[in-house]
């Protein structure tokens, strides 16, 4: 085995955006529609805002 390299960021955890920031960013991308099923369970349809959808990679 070779000696470990320093990781890309030196193995030091970088500060992360807050949970609020991440949730807010997702809210700009996602369109959620939640319905209640007859037996009381929750079901959420996910769609995406048109601009985001168009920007998503399409190959593959």
């Amino acid at each position, binding site marked *: *085995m*070779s*000696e*470990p*390299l*320093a*990781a*890309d*960021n*030196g*193995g*030091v*955890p*970088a500060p*992360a*955006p807050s*949970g609020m920031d*991440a*949730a807010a960013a*997702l809210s700009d*991308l*996602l369109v*959620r529609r939640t*319905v209640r*099923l007859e*037996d009381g*369970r*929750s*079901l*959420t*349809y*996910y*769609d*995406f805002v048109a601009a985001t*959808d168009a920007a*998503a*990679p*399409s*190959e*593959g």
Partner: protein
Amino acid sequence: MSERRWHPMLGEWVITATHRQDRTFLPPADYCPLCPTSPGGFPTEVPEADYRFVVFDNKFPSMRSPAPVPEVEGNVLHPIAPADGHCEVVLYTPRHEGSLGALPIGDLVRLIRVWTDRYLELGARPGIACVFIFENRGEAIGVTIHHPHGQIYAFPFVPPKIERERDQAAAHFARTGRCLMCDIVADERTDGRRLVVEGEHFVAFIPFFARYPYETYLVSKQHRASLADLTESEVTDLARVLKDLLGRFDGLWQIPFPYMMVMHQAPVRTDEAPGDHLHFEFYPPMRTPQKLKFLAGCESGAGTYINDTLPEVKAAELRSVRLEP
């Protein structure tokens, strides 16, 4: 009924879920409960005729909120608790045929955003300590419905494997000041023999310590505690590397390759430790096209895995798979 029973010898919870004995078992394709309900057809779990992605509460959950009162009383030796929590099903596509790896990259990007949304939403609910995203693929794993789907469990405790992994990462951080997974990624990239696919931001490899022949880790090259920390370009690269890896699995023997895929990250957004590092672990159960790797006496009874293969050899096999254009 479901409840949590404490295992005093191992110091971990066991969940009973007796109603799951009656869950849907390998229905024919034209009676799939996860396909959209078609006009005039029988009602499935999804009322609408079309969708992009759907997430819903599992009809046969191991945990639910509020949880039922336990069936029996516990005692000091045998504590018991309600199986509070959430179990969700994530449908990848309205089409019955297909797989996670068959999704176009754009849909994988969208799915990663759905996973991220569920991670944040479930993790913010009262009493939830760990959001665990996973997929079981193939009858060899015990899949009971073939429609392409994954699952999410939101636990009221941090499950023991994740807790042990975090303990090891914390000890490494205390000793070195570095993230354990960052060091593992750096070592695998330097060595190179166990790499399977490498993208700009993510890398997949069979770890030095693999317990299954084709056990593969898919890891963020930068230190990211959870899905919620990924940038747009990292999400796209994750989709690309994930699709590449799954294509190699299916291409290896030209069969739909069974696997368990689990995601390890900070258990919830408000409980991040320096050693939490987002990664996927794949445990394929096959060791040849016809032979399963059983978790037999030594693995199940002693907790020590015997791997009949060398990770360096298996990684080379996966690297050599010619992907469909």
